[in-house]
């Protein structure tokens, strides 16, 4: 018996419903553009890491990240590039690297850390790296950084 008697989706016609898109400014790059940008960054990050410039590599990948609903590929590559940087940094160098970041970059880094921790399967093997970066970042940027990760709708 077909109990779904409605033939149309009435929720899309509800004017009063608050849409996710109304709550933040959308990323105005289209998917291919964002993807190209991220690949270019990936290349420059590799060369910076070869020169041992962790701070520069972090700034490159954290500046103006792709966010929002339709740039999934760009977001994944961005996260993977960031994780290579995090894995390759010695734990004694972490505070200096974080201190060299702007507040925007620190907030973006926190977002990526939480995203990394949320990814199932992958998080298990890298949990210690993510957690140690999280601890150092919280000491420097404070709980305000964590609050901003939770309120910011521009999900990376």
């Amino acid at each position, binding site marked *: 018996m077909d109990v779904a008697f409605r033939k149309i989706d009435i929720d899309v016609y509800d004017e*009063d419903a*608050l849409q996710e898109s*109304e*709550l*933040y400014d959308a990323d105005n790059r289209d998917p291919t553009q964002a993807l190209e940008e991220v690949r270019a960054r990936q290349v420059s990050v590799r060369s910076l890491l070869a020169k041992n410039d962790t701070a520069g590599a972090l700034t490159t990948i954290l500046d103006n990240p792709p966010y929002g609903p339709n740039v999934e590929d760009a977001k994944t590559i961005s996260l993977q590039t960031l994780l290579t940087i995090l894995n390759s940094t010695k734990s004694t160098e972490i505070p200096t690297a974080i201190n060299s970041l702007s*507040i925007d970059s620190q*907030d973006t880094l926190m977002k990526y850390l939480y995203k990394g921790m949320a990814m199932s399967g992958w998080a298990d093997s890298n949990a210690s790296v993510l957690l140690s970066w999280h*601890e150092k970042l*919280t*000491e420097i*940027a*404070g*709980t*305000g*950084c964590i*609050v*901003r990760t939770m*309120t*910011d*709708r*521009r999900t990376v």
Partner: protein
Amino acid sequence: MPEIFNISQTPITAHAFNADRSQLAVSLNSNDAQILTRSGSEWAPSEMLTEHDKVITSIDWAPNSNQIVTASQDRNAYVWQQTPDPETGKIVWKPTLVLLRINRAATHVRWSPKEDKFAVASGARAIAICSFDPENNWWVSKHLKKPIRSTVLAVDWHPNNVLLAAGSADMKARVFSAYVKEIDERPAATVWGSKLPFNTICGEFASAAGGWVHSVGFSPSGDVLAFASHDSSISIAYPGGAIHNIRMPTLPLVTLTWTSEDTIIAAGHDCQPIVFSGSDAGWQEVGTLDNGSYGSGSKAGPGSVGRLKTGAFATFRDADSRGQTSSGTTDSKLSTIHQNTITSVRPYAGVPGQITQVSTTGVDGTLVIWDTASVSALTGRMAAMSM
């Protein structure tokens, strides 16, 4: 020295003083408003205002006309006036119904500077601007609806009695014109615009990282708007100019007030009032009014991620690794005076434009009156984390 009063064990939802600060109206998270009278260094309960069916979310006391307005989750607001009781002759507070016509809770209420109107923010995605209709002896309302998309959390009036700032859960702070034809004369042009019919939007602002706008405030001149949002930031907007956004490394602020044209005091989940200062060139955080020596809790070390070093975590860890069963020091008390979130900061003494003292109330049931001049630096400790 801040004056500390333990008003109750329950949270204080809202507080308002009368003109000479001899009486205080509070909502103790209940359906009734309590009027307390100052006797020496204590506040003694004197009257209860019982009319609402649900929690009173906001109270405002008009200093000149001596009227109290209470707004509640029961979708009503009442205006209370002192009149002699016909039977006993005593002066009692008598309520007058306000027709808000909202179908959700009222969240915030403020009298306008001239006290002939008041604005009620509500969960019905509207703000009710109420004015008195002498023909029928009740208060009637007009709604500011467009383009509000979610609950309005806070309102503040501009000194010209016409413009209204509103902070909302749709992450925006807006400035509306609440010009009521029957009551107001045409206002002079301001930086926000001229010729403003009812419900015109004079400005819409948001913080970059979003978050509900918990509190809004116009500067004493009305030319600048400040708002605190849930992304732990405070923004100061100059219409036609820059918006300065200060991101705090601490927990979000939920209430703010201007003490002069270049100073703001804001408080929130960090349990201490924080002072900001600046001009259109830039704003920065200057310090805190609570230097940590007034409270009786232990202080966390600088920079320590305090939650792991004190409190429940440490108790169990010590019991496990060192066999210690008592924590010794009072680890669960905060080093600030307020032991829980401060939900309301209001001017207490001074003239508008030069406020010398502010009063704060919070979820811990204490009322504290602070001196705005005694500012100390915010040290590396993050007060709310030293729990």
